[in-house]
Protein backbone atom coordinates (compact mmCIF):
# COMPACT_ATOMS: atom_id res chain seq x y z
CA UNK A 1 0.00 0.00 0.00
CA UNK A 2 1.35 3.40 -0.85
CA UNK A 3 2.34 5.73 1.94
CA UNK A 4 2.53 2.94 4.50
CA UNK A 5 6.21 3.55 4.99
CA UNK A 6 5.71 7.28 5.32
CA UNK A 7 2.91 6.73 7.85
CA UNK A 8 5.13 4.39 9.81
CA UNK A 9 7.87 7.00 10.10
CA UNK A 10 5.38 9.59 11.31
CA UNK A 11 3.92 7.11 13.84
CA UNK A 12 7.43 6.33 15.10
CA UNK A 13 8.04 9.97 15.83
CA UNK A 14 4.69 10.36 17.60
CA UNK A 15 5.24 7.22 19.67
CA UNK A 16 8.49 8.57 21.11
CA UNK A 17 7.96 10.12 24.48
CA UNK A 18 7.79 13.90 24.78
CA UNK A 19 11.16 15.54 24.13
CA UNK A 20 12.85 12.32 23.03
CA UNK A 21 14.12 12.09 19.48
CA UNK A 22 14.21 8.61 17.95
CA UNK A 23 17.22 7.63 15.83
CA UNK A 24 17.18 9.07 12.35
CA UNK A 25 15.66 6.41 10.14
CA UNK A 26 17.77 6.86 7.05
CA UNK A 27 16.63 3.66 5.45
CA UNK A 28 12.96 4.43 6.02
CA UNK A 29 13.32 7.91 4.63
CA UNK A 30 15.10 6.63 1.55
CA UNK A 31 12.28 4.19 0.89
CA UNK A 32 9.70 6.93 1.22
CA UNK A 33 11.57 9.20 -1.19
CA UNK A 34 11.87 6.35 -3.68
CA UNK A 35 8.16 5.75 -3.45
CA UNK A 36 7.51 9.45 -3.94
CA UNK A 37 9.75 9.42 -6.98
CA UNK A 38 7.95 6.40 -8.45
CA UNK A 39 4.56 7.97 -7.82
CA UNK A 40 5.76 11.22 -9.29
CA UNK A 41 7.07 9.53 -12.41
CA UNK A 42 3.86 7.57 -12.83
CA UNK A 43 1.88 10.75 -12.40
CA UNK A 44 4.07 12.53 -14.93
CA UNK A 45 3.55 9.77 -17.44
CA UNK A 46 -0.21 9.84 -16.84
CA UNK A 47 -0.23 13.59 -17.20
CA UNK A 48 1.78 13.33 -20.43
CA UNK A 49 -0.51 10.58 -21.66
CA UNK A 50 -3.52 12.85 -21.22
CA UNK A 51 -1.70 15.49 -23.23
CA UNK A 52 -1.18 13.06 -26.09
CA UNK A 53 -4.90 12.26 -26.07
CA UNK A 54 -5.77 15.94 -26.11
CA UNK A 55 -3.43 16.41 -29.05
CA UNK A 56 -5.20 13.53 -30.84
CA UNK A 57 -8.50 15.38 -30.34
CA UNK A 58 -7.29 18.27 -32.47
CA UNK A 59 -6.72 15.82 -35.33
CA UNK A 60 -9.98 13.95 -34.82
CA UNK A 61 -12.48 16.64 -33.86
CA UNK A 62 -11.06 19.77 -35.42
CA UNK A 63 -10.07 23.01 -33.75
CA UNK A 64 -13.31 23.42 -31.78
CA UNK A 65 -13.66 20.78 -29.09
CA UNK A 66 -17.14 19.55 -28.14
CA UNK A 67 -18.18 21.04 -24.78
CA UNK A 68 -18.48 17.60 -23.16
CA UNK A 69 -14.76 17.07 -23.67
CA UNK A 70 -13.84 20.58 -22.58
CA UNK A 71 -15.51 19.87 -19.22
CA UNK A 72 -13.02 17.11 -18.56
CA UNK A 73 -9.97 19.24 -19.24
CA UNK A 74 -8.04 21.31 -16.72
CA UNK A 75 -7.33 24.99 -17.35
CA UNK A 76 -3.69 24.15 -18.04
CA UNK A 77 -4.67 21.44 -20.53
CA UNK A 78 -6.97 23.90 -22.30
CA UNK A 79 -4.10 26.37 -22.47
CA UNK A 80 -1.83 23.70 -23.93
CA UNK A 81 -4.48 22.80 -26.49
CA UNK A 82 -4.97 26.44 -27.55
CA UNK A 83 -1.25 26.95 -28.01
CA UNK A 84 -0.97 23.68 -29.90
CA UNK A 85 -3.73 24.44 -32.39
CA UNK A 86 -2.37 27.95 -32.96
CA UNK A 87 1.08 26.54 -33.62
CA UNK A 88 -0.38 23.95 -35.98
CA UNK A 89 -2.41 26.58 -37.83
CA UNK A 90 0.66 28.78 -38.29
CA UNK A 91 2.60 25.82 -39.65
CA UNK A 92 -0.14 24.80 -42.09
CA UNK A 93 -0.54 28.34 -43.38
CA UNK A 94 3.16 28.49 -44.11
CA UNK A 95 3.08 25.55 -46.53
CA UNK A 96 3.56 26.42 -50.18
CA UNK A 97 3.37 29.94 -51.43
CA UNK A 98 -0.27 30.89 -51.04
CA UNK A 99 -2.82 30.04 -48.35
CA UNK A 100 -1.07 26.92 -47.15
CA UNK A 101 -2.45 23.42 -46.88
CA UNK A 102 -4.84 21.99 -44.28
CA UNK A 103 -3.18 18.68 -43.53
CA UNK A 104 -5.87 17.72 -41.03
CA UNK A 105 -7.99 17.00 -44.09
CA UNK A 106 -7.47 14.16 -46.56
CA UNK A 107 -6.78 11.68 -43.78
CA UNK A 108 -7.81 8.70 -45.88
CA UNK A 109 -6.67 7.76 -49.37
CA UNK A 110 -9.35 8.83 -51.83
CA UNK A 111 -11.38 5.95 -53.22
CA UNK A 112 -14.35 7.60 -54.89
CA UNK A 113 -14.84 11.19 -55.81
CA UNK A 114 -18.44 11.24 -54.61
CA UNK A 115 -19.90 9.18 -51.79
CA UNK A 116 -23.37 8.37 -50.55
CA UNK A 117 -23.98 9.78 -47.07
CA UNK A 118 -26.87 9.71 -44.62
CA UNK A 119 -27.46 12.55 -42.22
CA UNK A 120 -27.54 11.43 -38.58
CA UNK A 121 -28.42 14.75 -36.97
CA UNK A 122 -30.02 17.98 -38.13
CA UNK A 123 -27.22 20.21 -39.37
CA UNK A 124 -28.74 22.79 -41.67
CA UNK A 125 -27.38 24.29 -44.88
CA UNK A 126 -24.10 22.89 -46.11
CA UNK A 127 -22.22 24.47 -48.99
CA UNK A 128 -20.94 21.94 -51.50
CA UNK A 129 -19.47 23.11 -54.79
CA UNK A 130 -19.43 26.52 -56.47
CA UNK A 131 -22.13 28.01 -54.29
CA UNK A 132 -24.67 25.21 -54.38
CA UNK A 133 -25.76 23.94 -50.99
CA UNK A 134 -27.76 21.07 -49.53
CA UNK A 135 -30.01 20.95 -46.50
CA UNK A 136 -28.73 18.34 -44.09
CA UNK A 137 -31.76 17.10 -42.20
CA UNK A 138 -31.75 14.05 -40.00
CA UNK A 139 -32.18 10.85 -42.05
CA UNK A 140 -31.81 12.61 -45.40
CA UNK A 141 -29.42 10.98 -47.85
CA UNK A 142 -27.11 12.77 -50.25
CA UNK A 143 -24.49 12.14 -52.89
CA UNK A 144 -21.68 14.50 -52.03
CA UNK A 145 -17.98 15.11 -52.81
CA UNK A 146 -15.92 12.96 -50.50
CA UNK A 147 -13.50 15.71 -49.52
CA UNK A 148 -16.25 17.93 -48.15
CA UNK A 149 -17.84 15.13 -46.08
CA UNK A 150 -14.78 13.90 -44.23
CA UNK A 151 -14.96 16.34 -41.36
CA UNK A 152 -18.70 15.89 -40.85
CA UNK A 153 -18.35 12.12 -40.92
CA UNK A 154 -15.72 12.32 -38.20
CA UNK A 155 -17.95 14.57 -36.14
CA UNK A 156 -20.78 12.05 -36.36
CA UNK A 157 -23.12 14.29 -38.34
CA UNK A 158 -22.96 12.27 -41.55
CA UNK A 159 -22.57 8.56 -42.05
CA UNK A 160 -20.98 6.98 -45.12
CA UNK A 161 -23.50 4.63 -46.69
CA UNK A 162 -21.61 1.71 -48.18
CA UNK A 163 -23.50 0.02 -50.98
Amino acid at each position, binding site marked *: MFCERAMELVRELHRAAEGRLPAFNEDGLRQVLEEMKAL*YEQNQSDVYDRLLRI*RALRWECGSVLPSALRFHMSAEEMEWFNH*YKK*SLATYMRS*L*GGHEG*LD*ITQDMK*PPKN*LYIEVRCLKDYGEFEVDDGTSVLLKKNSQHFLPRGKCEQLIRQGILEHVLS
Partner: protein
Amino acid sequence: MTEELDLPGQDSDAGSEEVVLTPAELIDRLEQAWMNEKFAPELLENKSEIVECVMEQLQHMEENLRRAKKGDLKVSIHQMEMERIRFVLSSYLRCRLMKIEKFFPHVLEKEKTRREGEPSSLSPEEFAFAREYMANTETYLKNVALKHMPPNLQKVDLLRAVPKPDLDSYVFLRVKERQENILVEPETDEQRDYVIDLEEGSQHLIRYKTIAPLVASGAVQLI
Protein backbone atom coordinates in the same frame (compact mmCIF):
# COMPACT_ATOMS: atom_id res chain seq x y z
CA MET B 1 0.47 19.53 -68.67
CA THR B 2 3.89 19.34 -70.22
CA GLU B 3 5.57 22.11 -68.22
CA GLU B 4 8.75 21.17 -66.51
CA LEU B 5 9.70 22.15 -63.01
CA ASP B 6 13.01 23.25 -61.61
CA LEU B 7 14.25 21.50 -58.56
CA PRO B 8 17.58 21.99 -56.81
CA GLY B 9 19.83 18.96 -57.31
CA GLN B 10 20.91 16.60 -54.57
CA ASP B 11 24.63 17.44 -54.60
CA SER B 12 24.99 19.69 -51.62
CA ASP B 13 28.72 20.26 -52.24
CA ALA B 14 28.15 21.39 -55.81
CA GLY B 15 25.80 24.08 -54.57
CA SER B 16 22.27 24.11 -55.89
CA GLU B 17 22.35 22.90 -59.45
CA GLU B 18 18.95 23.02 -61.05
CA VAL B 19 17.39 19.71 -62.00
CA VAL B 20 14.45 19.90 -64.36
CA LEU B 21 11.62 17.47 -63.61
CA THR B 22 8.42 16.70 -65.42
CA PRO B 23 5.28 16.83 -63.27
CA ALA B 24 5.16 13.02 -63.33
CA GLU B 25 8.73 12.78 -62.08
CA LEU B 26 7.95 15.31 -59.35
CA ILE B 27 5.04 13.24 -58.08
CA ASP B 28 7.30 10.16 -58.19
CA ARG B 29 9.80 11.97 -55.99
CA LEU B 30 6.99 12.96 -53.62
CA GLU B 31 5.79 9.36 -53.33
CA GLN B 32 9.31 8.13 -52.70
CA ALA B 33 9.84 10.72 -49.98
CA TRP B 34 6.44 9.77 -48.53
CA MET B 35 7.19 6.05 -48.35
CA ASN B 36 10.68 6.60 -46.93
CA GLU B 37 9.26 8.86 -44.25
CA LYS B 38 6.46 6.40 -43.42
CA PHE B 39 8.80 3.47 -42.87
CA ALA B 40 11.86 5.14 -41.37
CA PRO B 41 11.89 5.15 -37.54
CA GLU B 42 13.53 8.61 -37.40
CA LEU B 43 12.76 11.96 -38.99
CA LEU B 44 14.43 12.14 -42.40
CA GLU B 45 15.98 15.10 -44.15
CA ASN B 46 13.38 17.67 -45.07
CA LYS B 47 12.34 17.91 -48.72
CA SER B 48 10.77 21.35 -48.76
CA GLU B 49 11.71 21.92 -52.40
CA ILE B 50 9.54 18.96 -53.38
CA VAL B 51 6.74 20.18 -51.11
CA GLU B 52 6.84 23.66 -52.64
CA CYS B 53 6.88 22.38 -56.22
CA VAL B 54 4.01 19.98 -55.56
CA MET B 55 1.94 22.77 -54.05
CA GLU B 56 2.64 24.91 -57.11
CA GLN B 57 1.60 21.96 -59.25
CA LEU B 58 -1.68 21.62 -57.33
CA GLN B 59 -2.27 25.34 -57.76
CA HIS B 60 -1.86 25.02 -61.55
CA MET B 61 -4.17 22.04 -61.69
CA GLU B 62 -6.83 23.89 -59.74
CA GLU B 63 -6.60 26.88 -62.10
CA ASN B 64 -6.89 24.60 -65.13
CA LEU B 65 -9.94 22.95 -63.61
CA ARG B 66 -11.62 26.28 -62.97
CA ARG B 67 -11.18 27.26 -66.64
CA ALA B 68 -12.39 23.89 -67.94
CA LYS B 69 -15.92 23.29 -69.16
CA LYS B 70 -18.35 21.83 -66.65
CA GLY B 71 -19.29 18.22 -67.28
CA ASP B 72 -16.11 17.57 -69.22
CA LEU B 73 -14.99 14.06 -68.31
CA LYS B 74 -11.39 15.20 -67.98
CA VAL B 75 -12.49 17.35 -65.04
CA SER B 76 -13.35 14.37 -62.80
CA ILE B 77 -10.14 12.62 -63.72
CA HIS B 78 -8.03 15.66 -62.93
CA GLN B 79 -9.96 16.21 -59.71
CA MET B 80 -9.25 12.63 -58.66
CA GLU B 81 -5.60 13.08 -59.48
CA MET B 82 -5.50 16.26 -57.44
CA GLU B 83 -7.13 14.54 -54.46
CA ARG B 84 -4.63 11.72 -54.69
CA ILE B 85 -1.67 14.09 -54.79
CA ARG B 86 -3.09 16.15 -51.96
CA PHE B 87 -3.54 13.00 -49.90
CA VAL B 88 0.06 11.89 -50.43
CA LEU B 89 1.40 15.35 -49.66
CA SER B 90 -0.74 15.75 -46.53
CA SER B 91 0.14 12.26 -45.35
CA TYR B 92 3.85 12.97 -45.85
CA LEU B 93 3.70 16.22 -43.88
CA ARG B 94 1.55 14.63 -41.15
CA CYS B 95 4.01 11.78 -40.78
CA ARG B 96 6.86 14.26 -40.29
CA LEU B 97 4.90 16.34 -37.81
CA MET B 98 4.05 13.26 -35.78
CA LYS B 99 7.70 12.27 -35.56
CA ILE B 100 8.68 15.81 -34.61
CA GLU B 101 6.13 15.75 -31.78
CA LYS B 102 7.04 12.24 -30.69
CA PHE B 103 10.78 12.89 -30.47
CA PHE B 104 10.75 16.62 -29.95
CA PRO B 105 13.64 17.04 -27.46
CA HIS B 106 15.93 14.87 -29.62
CA VAL B 107 14.93 16.52 -32.87
CA LEU B 108 15.71 19.94 -31.42
CA GLU B 109 18.98 18.74 -29.87
CA LYS B 110 20.07 17.32 -33.22
CA GLU B 111 19.33 20.64 -34.89
CA LYS B 112 21.24 22.52 -32.19
CA THR B 113 24.34 20.37 -32.66
CA ARG B 114 24.15 20.31 -36.46
CA ARG B 115 27.36 21.30 -38.18
CA GLU B 116 27.54 24.13 -40.70
CA GLY B 117 26.78 22.80 -44.18
CA GLU B 118 25.04 19.66 -42.95
CA PRO B 119 21.49 19.43 -44.26
CA SER B 120 18.76 20.01 -41.71
CA SER B 121 16.07 17.49 -40.88
CA LEU B 122 13.67 20.35 -40.27
CA SER B 123 12.32 22.97 -42.61
CA PRO B 124 12.33 26.47 -41.09
CA GLU B 125 8.57 26.18 -40.48
CA GLU B 126 8.93 22.75 -38.88
CA PHE B 127 11.71 24.11 -36.69
CA ALA B 128 9.44 26.92 -35.48
CA PHE B 129 6.68 24.38 -34.82
CA ALA B 130 9.06 22.09 -32.91
CA ARG B 131 10.33 24.95 -30.73
CA GLU B 132 6.79 26.07 -29.94
CA TYR B 133 5.75 22.49 -29.13
CA MET B 134 8.68 22.15 -26.72
CA ALA B 135 8.01 25.48 -25.00
CA ASN B 136 4.30 24.73 -24.74
CA THR B 137 4.84 21.25 -23.29
CA GLU B 138 7.56 22.39 -20.87
CA THR B 139 5.35 25.19 -19.57
CA TYR B 140 2.48 22.78 -19.13
CA LEU B 141 4.52 20.19 -17.24
CA LYS B 142 6.00 22.89 -15.01
CA ASN B 143 2.60 24.35 -14.19
CA VAL B 144 0.87 21.07 -13.55
CA ALA B 145 3.23 18.51 -12.15
CA LEU B 146 6.20 20.32 -10.79
CA LYS B 147 4.64 23.23 -8.96
CA HIS B 148 3.25 20.94 -6.29
CA MET B 149 6.30 18.79 -5.79
CA PRO B 150 9.15 19.34 -3.33
CA PRO B 151 12.29 20.90 -4.84
CA ASN B 152 14.27 17.66 -5.02
CA LEU B 153 11.92 16.33 -7.66
CA GLN B 154 11.44 19.49 -9.66
CA LYS B 155 13.80 19.03 -12.55
CA VAL B 156 12.39 17.57 -15.70
CA ASP B 157 14.91 16.31 -18.16
CA LEU B 158 12.93 15.92 -21.34
CA LEU B 159 15.91 14.51 -23.22
CA ARG B 160 15.89 11.58 -20.81
CA ALA B 161 12.15 11.29 -20.29
CA VAL B 162 11.15 11.23 -23.95
CA PRO B 163 12.36 8.08 -25.75
CA LYS B 164 14.59 8.30 -28.81
CA PRO B 165 13.66 6.81 -32.17
CA ASP B 166 14.54 3.11 -32.36
CA LEU B 167 17.14 2.99 -35.09
CA ASP B 168 17.55 -0.75 -34.61
CA SER B 169 14.07 -1.46 -35.93
CA TYR B 170 13.90 -3.49 -39.10
CA VAL B 171 12.78 -2.04 -42.42
CA PHE B 172 12.01 -3.42 -45.87
CA LEU B 173 13.86 -1.86 -48.73
CA ARG B 174 14.43 -2.10 -52.47
CA VAL B 175 17.88 -1.34 -53.84
CA LYS B 176 17.97 1.40 -56.49
CA GLU B 177 21.74 1.73 -56.89
CA ARG B 178 24.10 -1.19 -56.38
CA GLN B 179 26.03 -0.96 -53.09
CA GLU B 180 29.15 -2.89 -52.18
CA ASN B 181 30.66 -3.76 -48.85
CA ILE B 182 27.91 -2.68 -46.52
CA LEU B 183 29.01 -3.47 -42.98
CA VAL B 184 26.34 -5.27 -40.99
CA GLU B 185 26.65 -5.37 -37.21
CA PRO B 186 25.06 -8.49 -35.77
CA GLU B 187 22.56 -8.38 -32.93
CA THR B 188 24.41 -10.58 -30.47
CA ASP B 189 27.97 -10.28 -29.26
CA GLU B 190 28.86 -13.81 -30.30
CA GLN B 191 28.34 -13.11 -33.99
CA ARG B 192 30.91 -11.13 -35.91
CA ASP B 193 30.48 -8.15 -38.19
CA TYR B 194 30.01 -9.16 -41.79
CA VAL B 195 29.85 -7.46 -45.13
CA ILE B 196 27.18 -7.70 -47.82
CA ASP B 197 26.63 -6.37 -51.31
CA LEU B 198 23.27 -4.96 -52.30
CA GLU B 199 22.34 -5.76 -55.88
CA GLU B 200 20.21 -3.32 -57.84
CA GLY B 201 16.54 -4.28 -57.77
CA SER B 202 16.93 -6.69 -54.86
CA GLN B 203 14.77 -6.41 -51.74
CA HIS B 204 15.90 -6.85 -48.16
CA LEU B 205 14.74 -6.78 -44.58
CA ILE B 206 17.47 -5.10 -42.63
CA ARG B 207 18.11 -2.98 -39.55
CA TYR B 208 17.47 0.68 -40.29
CA LYS B 209 20.71 1.85 -38.64
CA THR B 210 22.78 -0.14 -41.13
CA ILE B 211 21.31 1.53 -44.20
CA ALA B 212 20.26 4.95 -42.91
CA PRO B 213 22.80 6.85 -45.06
CA LEU B 214 21.62 4.95 -48.13
CA VAL B 215 18.07 6.17 -47.59
CA ALA B 216 19.33 9.74 -47.36
CA SER B 217 21.37 9.40 -50.56
CA GLY B 218 18.51 7.79 -52.47
CA ALA B 219 20.42 4.55 -53.09
CA VAL B 220 17.65 2.50 -51.49
CA GLN B 221 13.88 2.96 -51.24
CA LEU B 222 11.98 1.90 -48.10
CA ILE B 223 8.88 -0.14 -48.91
